[in-house]
């Protein structure tokens, strides 16, 4: 891999500069238009279903999907594809249980739905904890990944790569809010799909157009032989495989940055339409990971393992270099860079909502602050969170073991956020004590189980965990039931007639859209006819 550094440097830099340039133009246009809190966090609720579908795909598919899954398939065969399946099926959970209900009942953050009929401060605090825990683990993993990727492919130092990624992310959010973030995600989804399609066709051309030869050639090129096409090379503990599947399929429905995207469309119909678009894009992409991963194995063979690295993350760049040389490698690196930028921007804007809307506005200021203040605090929060993430990633350095962090983010989302949200919307008796206990049970159990797991304790890739009988790397199968149990236990220990009395309102509103939040009709190129007038608040708030 180090051999690329000198060769690719300038071409890759040009591609990266184009990616940054295009996203900055979008951000500039967005910055002219974003003014209200609804503009800032929900892009004025003016996105169409297809636009939001692309944005969800851009928000969701991280470098772990693009480089990580292809690398896992390259190294371990079938097990890598298990991730692809789980990441897609998860959207049925989102579509059936949460997408439209979130749109109808929420405003800016998942706390709006969770705290709708509860005591404001504890319920908001619980929701903010769930959001910030997910974002923290996910964000650090992405930032370290960005640093390693850019350093490896472009030759810029790790610390500078991390700092630049963080800086661009903060600029998108502070200047253009959710409108800019959404369009960065849409552009990224378009780039990612195009790159995957081009590579898939190229790989098929190389192996002679018969997709079955992908498997046959890959098997022939693997030292594992038949076992390469079977499960078990990477996920060798059966219960852990099931636990992973559970975490993936329920975790997506608890990811704050994904759920927040449903606030950016005008109504529930657009919300469910956007899930369908996202499922089409994400599904097509993950089917193509077959060609990328098995193709890398078929074409690069065992000789590619050294270049692919221990995690396999460089298998795809190596394949790109093999297929199209320096320029194609630079383009794939640029797409990976755009991928990371779009994901981290989505994460940080959801965290800024938790800090400014939930903690500052609702808990500290008891809802007495102005909308202007709220947006200012959100921008300060975005800068601070960006700075903290850059700091942790640089101090932790390349050696920081982030392999467990994305899994942990999904586990927290599935164990803390998903149970509390689902029960708030469907269980009349559910109350503040239940929400707080449930979120605490979910967060604490996921984090504790990952800390004692073999992935972390006593060190990276250790054989056994802290406890000899506990060898699960994925905590979902224990922590998700614990999250639901916490919700039930807290609810039973307290009676809250006020929360029960408000259930009818939340229930009817979430199912019918009666009383749902309206939008400002914001679009990237101008305001739409008939949009609710917001002339009184159109003065642009200067960026922090």
């Amino acid at each position, binding site marked *: 891999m180090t051999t690329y550094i000198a060769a690719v440097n300038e071409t890759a830099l040009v591609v990266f500069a184009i990616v940054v340039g295009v996203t900055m133009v979008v951000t500039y246009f967005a910055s002219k238009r974003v003014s209200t809190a609804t503009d800032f966090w929900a892009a004025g609720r003016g996105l169409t279903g297809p636009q939001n579908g692309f944005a969800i795909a851009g928000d969701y598919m991280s470098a772990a999907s693009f480089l990580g899954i292809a690398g896992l398939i390259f190294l371990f065969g079938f097990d890598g594809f298990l991730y692809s399946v789980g990441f897609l099926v998860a959207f*049925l959970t989102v579509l059936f249980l949460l997408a439209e209900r979130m749109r109808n009942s*929420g405003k800016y953050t998942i706390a709006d739905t969770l705290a709708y009929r509860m005591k404001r401060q504890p319920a908001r605090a619980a929701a903010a904890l769930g959001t910030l825990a997910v974002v923290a683990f996910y964000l650090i993993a992405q930032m370290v990944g960005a640093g390693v990727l850019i350093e490896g492919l472009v030759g810029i130092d790790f610390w500078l790569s991390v700092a630049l990624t963080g800086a661009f992310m903060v600029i998108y959010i502070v200047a253009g809010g959710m409108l800019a973030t959404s369009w960065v995600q849409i552009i990224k989804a378009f780039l990612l799909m195009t790159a995957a399609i081009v590579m898939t066709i190229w790989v098929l051309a190389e192996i002679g157009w018969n997709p079955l030869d992908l498997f046959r050639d890959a098997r022939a090129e693997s030292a594992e032989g038949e076992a390469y096409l*079977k*499960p078990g090379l990477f996920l060798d503990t059966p219960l852990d*495989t099931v636990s992973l599947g559970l975490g993936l399929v329920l975790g997506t429905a608890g990811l704050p940055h994904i759920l927040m995207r449903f606030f950016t469309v005008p109504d529930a119909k657009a919300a469910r339409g956007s899930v369908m678009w996202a499922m089409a894009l994400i599904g097509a992409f993950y089917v193509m990971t077959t060609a990328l991963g098995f193709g890398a194995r078929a074409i690069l063979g065992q000789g590619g393992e050294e270049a692919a690295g221990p995690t396999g993350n460089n298998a795809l760049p190596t394949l790109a270099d093999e297929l199209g040389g320096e320029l194609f490698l630079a383009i794939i690196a640029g797409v990976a860079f755009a991928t990371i930028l779009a994901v981290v921007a989505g994460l940080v804007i959801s965290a800024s909502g938790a800090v400014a809307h939930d903690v500052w506005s609702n808990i500290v200021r008891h809802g007495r602050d102005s909308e202007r203040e709220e947006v200012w605090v959100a921008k300060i929060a975005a800068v601070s969170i960006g700075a903290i993430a850059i700091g942790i990633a640089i101090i932790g350095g390349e050696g920081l073991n982030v392999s467990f962090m994305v899994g942990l983010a999904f586990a927290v989302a599935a164990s803390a956020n998903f149970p509390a949200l689902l029960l708030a919307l469907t269980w009349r008796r559910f109350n503040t004590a239940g929400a707080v206990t449930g979120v605490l049970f979910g967060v604490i159990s996921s984090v504790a189980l990952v800390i004692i797991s073999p992935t972390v304790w006593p060190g990276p890739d250790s054989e056994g965990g802290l406890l000899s009988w506990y060898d699960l790397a994925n905590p979902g199968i224990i922590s998700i039931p614990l999250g639901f149990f916490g919700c039930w236990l807290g609810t039973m220990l307290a009676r809250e007639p*006020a929360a029960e009395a408000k259930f*009818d309102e939340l229930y009817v509103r979430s*199912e019918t859209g009666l*009383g749902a*939040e309206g939008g400002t009709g914001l679009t990237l190129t101008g305001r739409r006819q008939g949009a609710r007038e917001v002339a009184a608040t159109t003065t642009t708030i200067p960026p922090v």
Partner: protein
Amino acid sequence: MTQTPASGADGADHHPEFDWEAVERSPEFRQLIKRKKAFVIPATIFFLAWYFGFIILAGYAPDFMGDEFLTDGLTVGYVLALSQFVMTWVLGWLYLRKADREFDPLAARAREAALGHATGNGDGSRRFERGSVETTEHPEARS
């Protein structure tokens, strides 16, 4: 910029002008929930069963998953994995079709029924301006 109070500051705006309990008890709303449940509950059970069947086989029956399916190179595991993609798209499409044809008209009727029950500001428009409720005390604040 004027110092307008952040109507979002205490979360979603509430709408005390609607008689939510009456809507919840209305035949239109009950019908909507009944129809939705009739699709969503079986569909959710089906997709979870199909997905976890696949995952459990991957965990506990790797040799079966590695068996050849019809032709050399294609395994049972890969075919089952692809079936998950098809299932996701088909169930998603079925849900969207149901929602457009059945759920949305029922939801619209439930909203119309709510306007009949509204104690005031319901003016027949589908989305309600929030101006009418900004002065209302927030229920969260009371608790």
